[in-house]
């Protein structure tokens, strides 16, 4: 059955073997006056129903751009998706006409952003903005949409939803605004929810509330959740599996327990070692030396080689080490993954 004809409502797991969402060799570049910045250089991953995949990376690693490419909202120009496939239940979204993509965006795959204040429109009430999902996609009347909006505001635990539905975004606190964004994103029961740094702008106590809400919602609706973040703590709390990105590539992919217990890529190892911990009190933190590469001049071979403690000549030569399956159902893009796994955890 065609994706578009399947109508409203949650996507139930169907008989076909195609995963919920599969990304294959995705490539995105930004063409600027100063040159082409390769933001995403061949990213592949899969997401299943009810699963939380965390995409972990620092600024400029391509984690957000790859999510924007899935949604089809890369700013173009200067951004161009130059290769790869985004398969949603087996259908390649990148080849669909824009009209059909619009129908999928928001209904079947939706996204929440880091900065809720700038993602919400300041001149419309939150009730109108949540209700817009229903008037646009399902053709509900304004009155019905408002009732739906109240229902959703209750679901994301905004107190006194009935009274607050006609308020404007600036009248809400940061945590409440993020709840409104989540309400909009889950309005049409999407199969995939992409959360791009959903709690980065929030205080820790509010962050805990929002992450709890997202986890509960995922449990209720069995949707797949892609959590994009740089926070190693948040990831450890909620993810099922993790993809670590560096300079536009996935360098390691594994279950959350494997990655924290014993990383198989030097970059992951370095990241984990640079978090302050109790037994390191009074000592120097094990910082990763150097800086992430300029995306216009990604080093030949493994892009992490200038900062890597395990580096050998083979790492400096193309091609970059592929993301290979290593024992224990995990993947690492390192020539020396065995050594990295053997190394004691810092």
């Amino acid at each position, binding site marked *: 059955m065609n994706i578009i004809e399947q109508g409203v409502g949650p996507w139930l797991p169907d008989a076909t073997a195609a995963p919920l969402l599969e990304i294959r060799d995705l490539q995105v570049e930004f063409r600027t006056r100063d040159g082409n910045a390769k933001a995403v250089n061949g990213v592949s991953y899969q997401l299943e129903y009810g699963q939380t995949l965390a995409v972990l990376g620092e600024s400029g690693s391509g984690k957000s751009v790859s999510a924007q490419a899935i949604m089809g909202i890369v700013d173009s120009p200067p951004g161009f998706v130059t290769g790869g496939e985004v398969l949603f239940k087996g259908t390649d979204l990148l080849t669909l006409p824009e009209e059909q993509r619009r129908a999928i965006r928001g209904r079947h795959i939706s996204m929440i952003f880091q900065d809720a204040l700038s993602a919400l429109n300041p001149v419309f009430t939150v009730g109108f903005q949540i209700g817009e999902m229903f008037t646009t996609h399902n053709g509900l009347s304004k009155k019905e949409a408002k009732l739906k909006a109240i229902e959703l505001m209750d679901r994301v635990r905004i107190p006194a939803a009935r009274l607050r539905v006609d308020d404007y975004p600036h009248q809400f606190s940061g945590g409440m605004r993020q709840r409104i964004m989540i309400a909009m994103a889950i309005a049409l029961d999407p199969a995939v929810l992409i959360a791009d740094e959903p709690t980065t702008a929030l205080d820790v106590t509010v962050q805990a509330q929002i992450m709890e809400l997202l986890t509960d919602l995922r449990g209720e609706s069995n949707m797949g959740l892609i959590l994009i973040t740089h926070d190693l703590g948040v990831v450890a709390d909620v993810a099922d599996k993790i993809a670590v990105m560096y300079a536009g590539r996935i360098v390691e992919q594994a279950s959350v327990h494997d990655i924290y217990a014993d990383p198989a890529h030097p970059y992951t190892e370095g990241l984990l070692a*640079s978090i302050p911990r109790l037994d390191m009190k009074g000592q120097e933190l094990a910082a990763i030396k150097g800086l992430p590469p300029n995306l216009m001049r990604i080093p030949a071979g493994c892009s992490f080689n200038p900062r890597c403690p395990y580096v050998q000549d083979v790492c400096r030569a193309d091609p970059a080490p592929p993301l290979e399956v290593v024992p224990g159902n995990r993947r690492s893009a390192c020539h020396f993954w065995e050594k990295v796994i053997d190394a004691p955890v810092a």
Partner: protein
Amino acid sequence: MPPSHEVILEARDLVKHFGIYQGIVLKRQIGAVKAVDGVSFDLHRGETLGIVGESGCGKSTLAKLLMVLERPTAGTVTFQGKDLFKAKNRELRRIRRDIQIVFQDPYSSLNPRMTVGDIIGEPYEIHPDVAPKAGRRKKVQELLEVVGLNPEHIHRYPHQFSGGQRQRIGIARGLALRPKVIICDEPVSALDVSIQAQVINLLEGLQEEFELAYIFIAHDLSVVRHISDRVGVMYLGKIVEIGDEAQIYDRPSHPYTQALLSAVPVPDPVDRDNRTRIVLEGDVPSPVDPPPGCSFHTRCWKAQEICSVDEPALVRRPGSDHPSACHFAEAAQIVTAHDV
């Protein structure tokens, strides 16, 4: 180097209220934002005092008061026996040399039209007696080297540096006058994890080298624990609990501290399903109209009648080995990031 017992900076009952006014011709005050509402602490030479709290708790206003960028509504800050807010002109300028600040955002705190050399050298323009004109360039180059930047980059502009490098420039500027106290207002919050560690290491190294005392303001509790000797927890303009790093993190006795610590995500998935987390209900109340009594009682699970009437003082109570502003202070162990 262990911090000494000599008190270098002393804040007593510091209060800063920002008035809210109404009317154009006949302006009258209709209320006040109680940003800082009675804060006292001592800072010893060579010590790091961490200040943690959520947005709006008054940590940055506190930093501005300590820098004399704001005048307090009440209270005093004395630096080596001199009252900061009574000092005028020359005396104030002399004191300011000894208290410097490093800001959070390395992008907006450096002037994009000035070269790195001019940015780091600017303190010498204001305090010309510290370095004679002829020797300034050399001093700036030394500073660049101290913070781990290439001294040859003295003629570059801020946009030619990455975020972590810019923060190093900000630190070099803070060091230029050889201060005794540096106020670090969220110095690593804008940086990536791998870069954060580099800057924290740098700050710790500098502290040892120059015998600096830091006031380290941050919302990241694990970073604060790593760098601090003592920690103060702020809520709605007040310090609700203060103690050494182990007292705050291992035996927190104020419910707010306990909730804050339990909310920190632990970077280790083992046992994640067995962890109990205190999730606070609701938001921080407005500092314009803080609740009567203990300002945390509206969100506190231990709250009783007395809490909404009687404001608890920041003192040591039987259930705790350090000062805590809670009538029912009782040490509790919270599993946090730091115990892994």
